[in-house]
């Protein structure tokens, strides 16, 4: 079972570190990361394995949202099924 963590906002030092350390804290295993910085806008998409997540996914989503707020970023945690369902027949 996997979730997609998307981070969008102004580039700053330590975004990847903070997001991935929160993943580690709740036992979400990062399996893939794609990131780019275009004209100062930081966009990162992270695929994480949530099979052994230590808290409910909805709670991780809340915590990531708050983390994003402290850094002035939008962070979305969404179960991978929504993308698979929407974009694949």
């Amino acid at each position, binding site marked *: 079972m996997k979730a*997609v963590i*998307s981070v*969008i906002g102004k580039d700053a030092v330590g975004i990847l570190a903070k997001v991935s350390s929160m993943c580690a804290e709740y036992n979400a295993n990062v399996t*893939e990361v*794609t990131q780019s910085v275009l004209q100062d806008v930081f*966009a990162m*998409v992270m*695929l994480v394995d949530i099979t052994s997540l230590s808290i*409910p*996914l*909805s709670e991780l*989503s*809340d915590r990531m949202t708050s983390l994003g707020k402290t850094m002035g970023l*939008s962070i*979305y*945690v*969404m*179960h*991978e*099924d*929504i*993308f*698979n*369902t*929407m*974009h694949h027949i």
Partner: protein
Amino acid sequence: MINLSDILETIRMIQDECLDIRTITMGISLLDCIDSDIDKACKKVYDKITRCAKDLVKVGNEIEKEYGIPIINKRISVTPIAMISAACHESPIKFALTMDKAAEAVGVNLIGGYSALVQKGFAAGDRELIESIPEALRLTSRVCSSVNIGSTKAGINLDACKLMGRIVRESAEATKDSACFGAAKLVVFCNSVDDNPFMAGAYHGVGEPDCIINVGVSGPGVVRSALAKNPGANINEIANIIKTTAYKITRVGQLVGVTASERLGVPFGIVDLSLAPTPQVGDSVAHILEEIGLEQCGAPGTTAALAMLNDAVKKGGVMACSSVGGLSGAFIPVSEDAGMIAAAKSGSLCIEKLEAMTAVCSVGLDMIVVPGDTTADTIAAIIADEAAIGMVNSKTTAVRVIPAIGKDVGEELDWGGLFGCGPVMKVNTMSPSKFINRGGQIPAPLHSLKN
């Protein structure tokens, strides 16, 4: 890995284009709550609703967080109360109070089913229920009411049209201190459906299982924005873009419905393929029609554009889910759609044009504010006209008009939230009284004889 552009597209649809699940509605049968003692019956109703729906809001909120898709409403529909109250032989108002209390206890914002089905005549309990509607809507905040007065198979019950003309007026009068809100929670149907998840017209039909989950999706903003990216497309290409977009929107509805049904341990019913607008900017069906190329909604061409839109939404949606049902089509509620409000205010959109539009889309004359001096007979005749469109075209049509007591054209009623605000629209004042007072039954059309 999932394609990066797919991820960003989904996030954009949700964050910028108002994609959401409009409602998860739990249908609950109350047939096993019938009792000749009204207090015992009400206790059974309360217990059953609070037992079946105790986790509905919690599960809805969980799914919302996990998939990152807003689920705007969690709601309940129940068996038409006239069937339950018939055995009690007294005013069914206690059932309305019980529904309201149960809805509050489980945390849903609306509960539908204070309803009667009288398309071919009145059975025991029907008249009592209908007469109690204005008071029931005044005394409750969450209860929604609907009455079915016609069908393709049965024809149109003109006595019921007349009665409902008066009841709609009385519902507005009874709540005139709260912007006539009672009438906004009352729908008069022709060909009403058993599995509609949308309020105010939702009820749980008698052929449905004991408890079921139905889902209504939304997404006018997504469709409009997809069209805006293709300004040079011909109408055939436009239809294809709408189909593709509707497919994606509906897939999310299917996912949410299946997940909710698994977690609640309740069978999954249907996805209602709909484009349900809200008064929020960027969530308007009228703006889609304008994107297609009309100066303003209501201009000549509106009906044709809407017919294409409605058909494309169904074609895209039908492949995206296991079972389709409910009302399934683009909604055109005036007060709940920023573009419709603007068009009604500017004079581009009139009731007669809206009536024509209802022949090609879901559902009917919806959330239209009419002058406070509109007579009961005129409202009855508006209901009869709309029902005739539904009856002849074998489709659901409905009337939800709100007489603005004490107000006239140029003024407006404002409810805020999802109900929005509506300008008072002009109504033809020629009298239909002689026609309405003839009473009786308009016979079913020839094409109802399909066997």
